[in-house]
């Protein structure tokens, strides 16, 4: 890599589970801009079994588009010389298999819940939970068998406040030791101990000869204190060592890059954090949502603290079949604006899982795919809510802006569909600008920030993200059709429009991308629009977008009509409202 001062062109490879996206960032005059993009299928699986092949496929396309040469002699050329090469090559990945984690602990609502939250910050799948549940007579045997049969990557053992319970934790440690000892040495899990600090020497002594033991701070040192960061950092480190660098072909990318490889979710989180600091508003958070085929990442930055939750195996393609097994098809059916039977819906889900890179050609298939995104997003948001700083589980904080990324959202045919899916899946509250990461630059910029922060900030400020518009989501209850918000839109040319939003409706008014307006808002006394409580209005400056100015007056929580016919009619109208 060239010296940081001399970095003028940066190539970012974002290797997802389905697609590999290449982005070329270059210095143009005084700022950095994305100048070209190319995409190819990720080649982690058969018949290639080499992630670098997909990067080479995309490089060929990028070379064709730009007329330049980036790949020569079997490597990415660094540094740039004329039309050859780049100054830095950055790689981010979400393609590796998530860390298979087994949780072991005492109280499901306490230490185990904290352990679950710690694991949720990285690409991890919780394979099982070992916990003494009432009535199980010989849990040691079951626990040991679970460890042996699942052979997870990591066992995260928690339990007991510092100086608290000892025996039940050691019983778990005993069973883990037995289960692990029955595995061949190379299949044994790594043990992360984040429980009662007093037991560290005993746990290390018992398990140290069988598995690698890492000791970190207790996730619950006291009943009312949760300390997740040390465990999260260690799990991320293990993920990077054990999964990311083990991906077939990743050694080739690593040799080309010579920079540390980064998990995509971490890079995405960095951008959300940067946006919060850029906005500089203590009273509002910034939310990033990245919906991919294999996982959903939700990054919430509130009061400067980033909460990252990665929902591995719960993406819109690979998570869909298990999700339907658990929740049934009816939950998807309720989001379809046209009638479809179970066979039709299942067929779409299966065929998409076989060929996740394909796109719907028929409307029904499009609606099914969007229904999946809605439901998967709702699940991910529900799981992430408790991790948001100081937030009670049932209250959605006010986020502004909301950043949307990930192929499953941004590849929808029309911007209105993206926005509607987001509103249905997230149910935001208050006033939010919604930014669309149409070219999937956000995680790339998070990675670039690691080597050239100025370039990342400059590219973000240069309008890399497209605005979908500003959404006002009043919270309160009223009768359908009742006026809940009066609004005067004063455009930059001083022209004005006075409008009203009625309960149950989705209202859209024109406000083009880049166009600014001042809103004078007067909510009904029972409705809160995030300006200080129910009935509190005021003046706010807003900016337009691809959809416009939206008032989502459908209420929180959003309730769909029960009658299928009228529900479909309502859904059709909402789709129509946002532009089809």
């Amino acid at each position, binding site marked *: 890599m060239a010296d940081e001062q001399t970095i003028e062109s940066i190539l970012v490879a974002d290797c997802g*589970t*389905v697609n590999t996206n290449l982005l070329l960032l270059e210095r143009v005059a005084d700022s950095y801009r994305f100048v070209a993009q190319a995409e190819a*299928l*990720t080649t*982690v*699986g*058969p*018949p*290639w*079994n080499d992630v670098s*092949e997909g990067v080479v*496929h995309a490089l060929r*396309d990028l070379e064709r588009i730009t007329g330049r040469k980036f790949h020569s002699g079997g490597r990415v050329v660094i540094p740039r010389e004329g039309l050859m090469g780049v100054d830095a090559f950055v790689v981010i990945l979400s*393609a*590796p*298999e998530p860390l298979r984690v087994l949780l072991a602990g005492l109280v499901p609502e306490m230490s185990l819940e904290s352990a679950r939250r710690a694991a949720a910050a990285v690409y991890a799948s919780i394979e099982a939970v070992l916990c003494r549940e009432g009535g199980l007579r*010989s849990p*040691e*045997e079951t626990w*040991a*068998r679970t460890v042996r*049969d699942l052979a997870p990557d990591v066992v995260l053992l928690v339990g007991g406040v510092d100086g608290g319970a000892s025996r039940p934790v050691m019983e778990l440690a*005993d069973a883990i030791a*037995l289960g692990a000892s*029955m*595995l*061949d040495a190379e299949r044994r899990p790594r043990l992360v101990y984040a429980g009662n600090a007093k037991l560290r020497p005993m746990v290390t002594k018992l398990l140290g000869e069988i598995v690698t033991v890492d000791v970190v701070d207790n996730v619950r040192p006291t009943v009312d204190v949760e300390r997740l960061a040390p465990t999260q950092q260690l799990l991320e480190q293990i993920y990077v060592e054990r999964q990311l660098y083990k991906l*077939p072909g990743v050694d080739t990318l690593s040799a080309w890059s010579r920079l540390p490889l980064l998990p995509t979710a971490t890079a995405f989180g960095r951008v959300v954090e940067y946006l919060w600091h850029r906005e500089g508003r203590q009273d509002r958070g910034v939310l990033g949502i990245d919906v991919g*085929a*294999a996982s959903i990442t939700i990054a919430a930055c509130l009061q400067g603290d980033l909460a990252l939750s990665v929902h591995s*195996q719960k*993406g819109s*393609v*690979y998570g869909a*079949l*298990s999700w339907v*097994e658990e929740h049934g098809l009816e939950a998807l059916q309720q989001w379809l604006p046209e009638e479809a039977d*179970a*066979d*039709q819906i*299942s*067929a779409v889900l*299966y*065929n998409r*899982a*076989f*060929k996740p*890179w*394909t*796109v*719907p*050609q*028929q*409307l029904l*298939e499009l609606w099914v795919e969007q229904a999946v995104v809605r439901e998967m997003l709702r699940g991910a948001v529900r799981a992430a809510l408790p991790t948001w700083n100081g937030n009670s589980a049932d209250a959605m904080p006010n986020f502004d802006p909301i950043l949307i990324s990930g192929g499953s959202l941004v*590849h*929808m*045919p*029309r911007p209105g569909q993206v926005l509607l899916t987001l509103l249905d899946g997230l149910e935001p509250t208050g006033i939010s600008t919604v930014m669309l990461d149409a070219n999937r630059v956000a995680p790339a910029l998070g990675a670039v920030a690691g080597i050239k922060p100025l370039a990342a900030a400059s590219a973000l400020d240069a309008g890399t993200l497209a605005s979908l518009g500003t959404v006002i989501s009043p919270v309160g209850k009223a009768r359908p059709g009742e006026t809940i918000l009066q609004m005067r839109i004063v455009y930059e040319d001083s022209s004005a429009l006075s409008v009203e939003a009625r309960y149950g409706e989705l209202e859209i008014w024109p406000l083009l991308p880049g166009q600014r307006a001042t809103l004078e808002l007067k909510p009904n006394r029972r409705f809160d629009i995030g300006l200080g409580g129910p009935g509190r209005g005021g003046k706010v400056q807003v900016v337009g977008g691809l959809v416009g100015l939206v008032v989502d007056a459908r209420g929180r929580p959003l309730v769909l009509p029960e009658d299928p016919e009228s529900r479909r009619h309502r859904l059709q109208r909402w789709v129509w409202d946002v532009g*089809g």
Partner: protein
Amino acid sequence: MILPFSIVNPLTRIEVLRQLPQPGKVLVRENDLIESFQLVGEYTPPPQFAIINASRELAIPPKKIARYLDVAVGDTVEEGAVLASRGGVGGRSCRAPFSGTVTGSGRGRLLLEAPSRPVQLSALLPGTVARVLPGEGAIIQAFGAFIQGVWGNGKEVFGVLRVAARNARQSLRAKKLDASLQGAIIVGGAGLDEEALAQAVEVQVGGIIVGGVSPQLMPRLLTVPFPVVVIDGIGKVSMSEVVFKLLRSLEGREAALSGQMPDLRRPAWSRLGNVERPYLAVPMPAQSAASIDRNAPLTLGSRVRALRQPYMGMSGVVVEIPRGLALLETGARRPCVKVQFESETVLVPHANLELLL
């Protein structure tokens, strides 16, 4: 442009990875000629084990349990044998839940283990051992026809290929299945229904290949004792003409049918390693054939298959690669190519095509 592909080829070099589910012993050597039924390797699953809490069973504190034990570490015991006992009034004993060896004791408990039986893996495809993966398995190479499918029920078989459908659009009918098809791999055209499946079980067919199946039938297909392989997709899907014609030309030949596939609930990364896709491999006496070029680009004249409705399963030839984007019914604008199917010529998004190699 690089497109994903499926192999539908009458004569190619076939390489099939036979991998043990767990590390084990490989029983073949490189360049061995091997028959379908011959073993490639075997592994021993983890032993059966039980933790017997003698202290709790006898109500004796762990520190005092030693003198009540009737067995020591290393002893072999039969099922039901007394492991620990205490006499006197209200005497108690604890017994071995299965035959095995006592492999550990401590804190008032005994660990009993019994070795599992080895599990063996056969070659399935007759051919030559091209490469041995020590402890893992082997790659078997043969020359012949190879057809990849999209879904399978996890079973596999080697048998004679029989075509039981008149054309690619016709589903498999129960009345076509009689005792003469016992052990045979049946080519069933577009799909099959519950009645045909029941008849197939009744006459003990060797396996079934179809274009598509109803999602509702899939749980039932997982329970049948023979492999079922779906070639084109789930739902109402005809079998690709090109596949059906090839299968018909292979009727009467012996073939290996594998319904093994990755778990669709675990994403692409689980497609690493041993399990690729379901397939039918028909070995031929040929001694050489071209390998598949996995990086073959899409060009005019490429053979392709459509992967999404309304054309799913249809195969054809690329006749034009227009520049720019075309508008789809969904409102999306996508780069498309013009494909000549058997009955019509239409624009199909690149993303919804795969090459047939």
